[in-house]
């Protein structure tokens, strides 16, 4: 069965229906593009056909391009992948342009109206195809999302969406849609000028057909003589400032590390200066340029393909469905409250327990506030709020836990307290209920000793704030069994987050990488590197927060606590004395970070950062000679990346895909790179080993290339070559 089928009606309207059989949402493939192309030819050639409506057989229109297609074109193309990608892209342009011209001659005479009828979500090429049609009808479906999110995975709309949207609405109006990938519901999409009509869902097809039969004008503005770009082309006085400003905004926001945003803007600028067909060719050249950039393939691999694979259970033990029906959340503090919220949002019944009713209620109030905010932003309804709140039972009574099939314990980070709670819970649930502990620092295997059955005990490390952070780190203790893993992963799927599964070791995966990052930043301050240089260098390499800002956010006293505990655990091998000197001094000064409105940064009374704390320079003088920004960046990157490599060596990470996805979602590791392992592959292991060993000579043994990296460098291996997806560390 083809993905597109055509039904020529007696009324003269040919309805082309997009329905990919084995997928919940339509995605475009190479084969389906050819089928669509053939159907368009057929409809245009058939005198009985007066016009065409393109719609979907599902309640959504389409999710976009199958991004695996782009990877496979590149791989199949041999030694000239750029040409293959360019020609593929131009092929798409020809087909869409055929729809847009619809048989008109060069005087704009003739042609058949073609309408798009979108029952729901239309993303990426799922919107670029409608944009090539002559009128877009969208069903009034508030859940539908309409937009061009390509930029989020490191590419940009390359099937004419960039060129058409800018010509349709102007560069300024199109920029949030193109540069931020902003999605709109149908009504907002109409207000923005993306779709033309919003109609009741059951009238969608009829409205589109009626329009097709109304002998409408179908010439696009840009195919008319005298077309002028809304808002002004680049050298029009009105457009001038838009374009000058756009470069600055994109540069400042992307810190220059996202090639797609730059390429998009260039395609818009260069395209605006030439006729439409030339603009499409320019768009294709820039699109190809981005696809050829290793950053875009790494981003697609981590942020789209592998993220989705992990969400769909790529590392889940092959066991029967473990969908959670009733979860017990122990501890209604910040973490517990967030866990209760995301569980209830997923429709799971929640028992939220704390020592006092007041504390439990406060935890539940977090959900109330969240829903109220949603209502004020029109993203939720009062009914939905009641529904969600009704799922949460805030109580002090452990007896309410009866019938739970998962416990998530989120009490104070103290082994004693946790052990006590574990016993209390299992007195009600028995030892067979899967028991998950939310911890960021305590070894799971130790905590498991308090459980009746260590096989049913597992770590689930949520990131804060729970409702915003997309990653969940599932930690297997020494004795954790497959059932517990499957349960944890099914739960993570229910709450719509992305899981990684790691083995139990100090700080698991995310924190073992992020702590050295913070420490390296602090260490540089001690050395006399300008704090501004440390922070800016981090941001210029794509880290969302500089290390000093990050430690202010997580709090200095937490840093002190972790440092002290680590020192006790490691003894003489502890390497971070220099860091502790600064950290402990800050703590003594009462500069505990953002919560104290004083840290490495100064804050105003409202807690807003006003700038780096000037007192820092009084204690740690900024050196006369400053290092090159690249050296600072290498230090900040390698301290994280080497930890990731050690995590593979030590079998904490069992799959490098999880290492890459987890790094980006967990702590925002330079998303442009696709993650630490993608970055190593991008720069090449031989260069990486040499560069980090050079850092080791200059800055200490923590930079010495781990044996695995040395070995791979010597063999010229890449991580994704050696550790094929799904394969365990070889």
């Amino acid at each position, binding site marked *: 069965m083809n993905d597109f089928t055509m039904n020529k009606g007696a009324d003269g309207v040919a309805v082309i229906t997009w329905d990919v059989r084995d997928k919940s949402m339509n995605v475009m493939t190479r084969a389906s593009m050819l089928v669509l192309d053939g159907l368009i030819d057929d409809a245009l050639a058939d005198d009985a056909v007066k016009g065409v409506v393109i719609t979907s057989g599902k309640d959504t229109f389409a999710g976009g391009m199958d991004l695996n297609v782009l990877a496979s074109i590149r791989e199949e193309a041999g030694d000239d992948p750029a040409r293959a990608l360019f020609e593929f892209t131009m092929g798409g342009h020809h087909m869409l342009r055929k729809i847009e011209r619809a048989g008109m001659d060069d005087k704009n005479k003739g042609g058949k109206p073609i309408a798009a009828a979108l029952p729901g979500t239309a993303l990426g090429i799922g919107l670029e195809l409608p944009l090539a049609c002559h009128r877009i009808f969208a069903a009034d479906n508030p859940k539908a999302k309409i937009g061009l999110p390509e930029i989020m995975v490191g590419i940009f709309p390359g099937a004419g969406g960039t060129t058409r949207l800018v010509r349709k609405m102007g560069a300024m109006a199109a920029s949030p849609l193109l540069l931020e990938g902003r999605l709109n519901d149908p009504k907002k999409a109409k207000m923005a000028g993306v779709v033309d009509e919003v109609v009741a869902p059951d009238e969608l097809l009829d409205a589109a057909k009626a329009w097709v039969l109304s002998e409408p004008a179908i010439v696009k503005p840009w195919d008319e003589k005298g077309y002028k770009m809304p808002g002004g082309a*680049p*050298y029009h*006085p009105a457009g*001038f400032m838009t*374009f*000058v*400003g*756009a*470069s*600055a*905004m*994109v*540069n*400042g*926001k992307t*810190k*220059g590390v996202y090639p797609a945003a*730059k390429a998009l*803007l*260039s395609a*818009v*600028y*260069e395209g605006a200066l030439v006729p439409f067909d030339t603009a499409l060719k320019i768009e294709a050249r820039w699109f190809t340029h981005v696809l050829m950039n290793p950053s875009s393939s790494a981003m697609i691999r981590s942020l789209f393909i592998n993220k989705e694979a992990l969400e769909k259970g790529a590392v889940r033990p092959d066991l029967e469905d473990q969908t959670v029906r009733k979860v017990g959340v122990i501890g209604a503090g910040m973490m517990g409250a967030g866990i209760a919220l995301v569980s209830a949002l997923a429709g799971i019944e929640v028992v939220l327990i704390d020592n006092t009713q007041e504390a439990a209620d406060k935890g539940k109030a977090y959900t109330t506030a969240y829903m109220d905010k949603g209502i004020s932003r029109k993203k939720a309804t009062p009914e939905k709020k009641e529904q969600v709140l009704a799922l949460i039972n805030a109580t002090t009574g452990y007896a309410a836990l009866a019938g739970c099939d998962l416990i998530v314990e989120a009490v104070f980070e103290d082994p004693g307290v946790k052990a006590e709670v574990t016993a209390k819970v299992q007195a009600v649930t028995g030892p067979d209920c899967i028991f998950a502990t939310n911890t960021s620092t305590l070894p799971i295997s130790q905590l498991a000793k308090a459980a009746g059955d260590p096989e049913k005990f597992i770590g689930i490390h949520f990131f804060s704030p729970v409702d915003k952070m997309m990653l969940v780190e599932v930690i297997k203790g020494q004795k954790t069994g497959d059932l517990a893993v499957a349960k944890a992963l099914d739960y993570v799927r229910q709450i719509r987050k992305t899981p990684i599964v790691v083995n139990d070791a100090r700080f698991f995966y995310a924190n073992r990488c992020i702590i050295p990052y913070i420490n390296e930043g602090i260490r540089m301050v001690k050395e006399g590197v*300008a*704090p*501004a*240089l440390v*922070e*800016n*260098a981090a941001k*210029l390499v794509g880290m969302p927060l500089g290390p000093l800002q990050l430690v202010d956010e997580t709090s200095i006293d937490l840093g002190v606590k972790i440092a002290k505990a680590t020192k006790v655990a490691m003894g003489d091998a502890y390497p971070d004395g220099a860091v502790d000197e600064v950290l402990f001094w800050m703590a003594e000064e009462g500069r505990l970070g953002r919560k104290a409105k004083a840290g490495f940064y100064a804050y105003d009374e409202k807690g807003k950062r006003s*700038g*780096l704390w000037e007192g820092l320079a009084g204690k740690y003088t900024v050196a006369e000679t*400053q290092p090159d*920004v690249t050296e600072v960046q290498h230090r900040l990157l390698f301290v994280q990346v080497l930890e990731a490599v050690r995590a593979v060596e030590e079998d904490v990470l069992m799959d490098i895909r999880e290492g890459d996805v987890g790094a980006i979602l967990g702590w925002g590791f330079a998303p442009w790179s696709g993650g630490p392992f993608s970055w190593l592959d991008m720069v090449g292991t031989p260069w990486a080993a040499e560069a980090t060993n050079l850092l080791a000579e200059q800055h200490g043994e923590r930079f010495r290339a781990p044996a695995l990296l040395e070995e791979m460098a010597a063999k010229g291996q890449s991580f994704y070559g050696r550790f094929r997806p799904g394969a365990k560390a070889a």
Partner: protein
Amino acid sequence: MSDAYIYDAIRSPRGKGRKDGALHEVTSVQLSAQMLNSLKSRNALEGHAVEDVIWGNVTQVGEQGGCLARTAVLASDLDERIPGLAINRFCASGLEAVNLAANQVRGGAGEGYIAGGVEMMSRVAMGSDGAAIAVDPSVAMETYFVPQGISADIIATEYNLSRDDADALAVESQNRAKAAWDDNRFAGSIVPIRDRNGIDILDHDEYMRPGTDMQSLGALRASFKDMGEVMPGFDAVALMKYPHLERINHIHHAGNSSGIVDGAAALLIGSKEFGEQHDLKPRARIRATAKIGTDPTIMLTGPVPVTQKILEDNGMAIGDIDLFEVNEAFASVVLRFMQAFDVGSDKVNVNGGAIAMGHPLGATGAMILGTLLDEMERSDKETGLATLCIASGMGAATIIERV
């Protein structure tokens, strides 16, 4: 190689570069032609007297487009056999015209040249000729483009120049310009602009604000703060290039930046033989010329490296220069120059500068060279240097010495 000499140097008064400026009614061609006619009559340049007219002008569109140099020659009383060359090196165009002319003479390509420039900023808006470096993302982003005002503020930040430093320089520029006018120091070179009937339109620099003090300047808002910090956020771009800075200190405003004005200037350049042939006495020898490219983001630091270059190339030291004209595009440019060379303000822009009198882009280079020469003659100094910062990161300089 023969030497190149300056035989004459004139300029127009500077009119406010606005619709209510006195020169707004005068076309760019007319203003240029009056300069050419004045040079012709002052120096009796009959017939095919000079090889070329090299004319600096930045915004070469509209009436300033289409090779304004040639149009101006044709509109003037000069012989039609004299061609015209329109050039653009942004703010140094007028100086570059002189340098090109001098080097043609030195190289033996003709004996005499007219060099100068014009900018009618009230009539042809700055920036209206477009600029790929600002607009084309693949250039703007790769070069970390920011507007000049932001660049001037980066200089202030990088070199620890305060708002008070800048305002003090601005006050001094106003005081010096007023004193110079009161003392008739520009009298020999100012060519009053007249209409076709010979009626005066403007005979003085009308942009000046005598009496400006620290207090009045203190009330002015920093001009580039919003575009830097808010929309579209040029400071973030600046910090990408200068990551050791935490933020940009915005110190510049309308009162300590150069004024937008209309104006023109011209010099008569020639060899020794040219002077003998036309019975003219050389006023100064053009000893050296130089130009250089610098980082385009901080953009306006060019006067420092170009001065280093011109001194090195000619075996000179900063102490060999008796008097400086450093174009007051922004206060920080001049402050940085004095800081870098440890030169006292008693040697720099002693008759005021563009902050007080204005900066008609394409003309200024020729104007300040004339101002420098007038002052060298008045105060009996031997050697002078004129230099300007230039958009997109360049610098130009000229050293002259009296003969």
